[in-house]
């Protein structure tokens, strides 16, 4: 049993807002849902599967299913994998469609951390006191930024990676963001700009970190018979993988992410190799996040990521592996502090030939979206999705 070719992404929508003090989270979910359905040429009455994650208000899918007035549901899934959720949920939707549990799956994400003033990356947060590690981690002042920083520090130690090499990831993202009218940071930056920006947590600088933004996005995944009647060039889901990577009782390597497991699983299901991929969306909470996942997905050898990303190799039209052509989380947006949704959306734009002409990859027929949820520095979820244009 495989999901290869069993489902198509027929609708995508990225909310244009980056700051939404005048809207509720539920309202943003509804706006992206309607946007993706309109993009697909479908309506809420066509939706019989609803997929959401931890950003959806209320426990599980119930409150949002009601707010969205989804009345025909016969399959729901609220798997919470942090920012990787939406990459994984696209695969779950394909699996549900392959099993005939639903025909039209709607996946939504929205949030407003910017309006709510959440100091997302630099303040220690106690999420759930029943988390078994909480007593041993929360007193340490673990934040998102210093957790990822420890991964970068170790990668530098093990492999000789430099701050300048990491900076190239931001430089590439900024080259793409300049063409995105919605990008929060549309200005092109240089390696010097990045390494001279203030240090947040050694060795990560401010420009190594993603933006904090409001907004959201949605996907509509449908069965092949429905996809064929819709107007877009069909984008098939051909492979998916997911996993959790954790500290394994205190025996771990912080330079390796869950992509080392979710990636090969997705490639195996799709029957393709890293060298076949024309475009990648790679989760970019920080520059180091990108570097580690690129290695783990097999685009270069472990430890060679620094050399691989340098000198513009991730810039569309310049390098070998065009990535995050919307500007990504580093420059464009990171709605609800969860970047997985926009990773899938930009991959679909590339496969449709709908990316900005300045960053559109020529003959882009095979793309990969990679998501990481929670914290690379402790435990995280990883999801990989491979898509193909017919």
């Amino acid at each position: 049993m495989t999901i290869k070719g069993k489902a198509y992404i027929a609708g995508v929508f990225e909310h244009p807002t980056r700051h939404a003090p005048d809207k509720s989270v539920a309202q943003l979910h509804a706006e992206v849902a309607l946007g993706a359905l309109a993009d697909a040429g479908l309506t809420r009455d066509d939706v019989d599967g609803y997929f959401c994650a931890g950003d959806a208000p209320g426990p599980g899918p119930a409150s949002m299913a009601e707010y969205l007035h989804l009345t025909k549901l016969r399959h729901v899934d609220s798997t919470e994998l942090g920012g990787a959720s939406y990459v994984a949920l696209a695969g779950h939707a394909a699996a549900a469609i392959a099993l005939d549990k639903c025909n039209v799956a709607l996946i939504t994400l929205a949030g407003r951390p910017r309006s709510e003033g959440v100091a997302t990356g630099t303040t220690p947060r106690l999420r759930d006191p029943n988390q078994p590690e909480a007593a041993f981690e929360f007193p340490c002042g673990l934040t998102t930024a210093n957790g990822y920083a420890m991964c970068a520090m170790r990668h530098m130690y093990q492999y000789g990676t430099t701050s300048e090499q990491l900076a190239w990831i931001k430089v590439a993202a900024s080259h793409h963001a300049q063409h995105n009218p919605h990008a929060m940071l549309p200005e092109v930056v240089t390696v010097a700009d990045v390494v001279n920006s203030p240090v947040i947590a050694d060795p990560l600088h401010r420009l190594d970190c993603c933006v904090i933004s409001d907004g959201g996005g949605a996907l509509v995944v449908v069965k092949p018979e429905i996809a064929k009647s819709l107007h877009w060039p069909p984008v098939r889901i051909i492979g998916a993988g997911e996993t959790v990577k954790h500290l394994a009782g205190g025996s771990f390597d912080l330079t390796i992410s869950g992509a080392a497991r979710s990636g090969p699983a997705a490639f195996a299901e799709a029957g393709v190799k890293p060298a076949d991929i024309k475009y990648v969306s790679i989760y970019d909470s920080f520059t180091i996040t990108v570097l580690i996942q690129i290695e783990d997905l097999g685009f270069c050898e472990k430890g060679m990521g620094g050399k691989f990303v340098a000198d513009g190799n991730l810039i569309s039209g310049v390098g070998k592996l065009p990535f995050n052509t919307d500007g990504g989380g580093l420059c464009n947006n990171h709605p609800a502090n969860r970047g997985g949704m926009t990773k899938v959306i930009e991959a679909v734009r590339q496969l449709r030939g709908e990316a900005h002409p300045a960053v559109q990859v020529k003959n882009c027929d095979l793309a990969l979206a990679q998501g990481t949820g929670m914290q690379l520095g402790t435990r995280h979820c990883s999801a990989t999705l491979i898509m193909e244009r017919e």
Partner: protein
Amino acid sequence: MAVARKIPSPIVNIETEPFWKAARERRFVVPTCSTCGRAHWYPRAICPFCGGNIAWHDASGRGTIYTYSVMRRAKEPYVIAYVTLAEGPTMLTNLVECDLDALRIGQPVGVVFVETENGPPVPMFKPA
């Protein structure tokens, strides 16, 4: 030198009460499996490797820095780190009583207990 910051109290639960009882006595104990003999971190009552019951062994308090980061963007910069214990497992902690600019991966460190706001003290490490 690393400036002291207010350390939030660890939330003690029934499973890890023995660890915190020892900490109040300034004893650093590491959970070690009575069946397979392996030590693990973070502490739990059931061995993550074999499912056996654990005992709380007095640890050497010695380790080396696996990785670290100075949190510069904080009112009082502090050092978060992973320290690999002589007993095997690598644990999340802070480095204290140290020069923020003179730390290096692989450096030997030793345990110290640091007071928390109103709970038991927590194990942290300083250069050996």
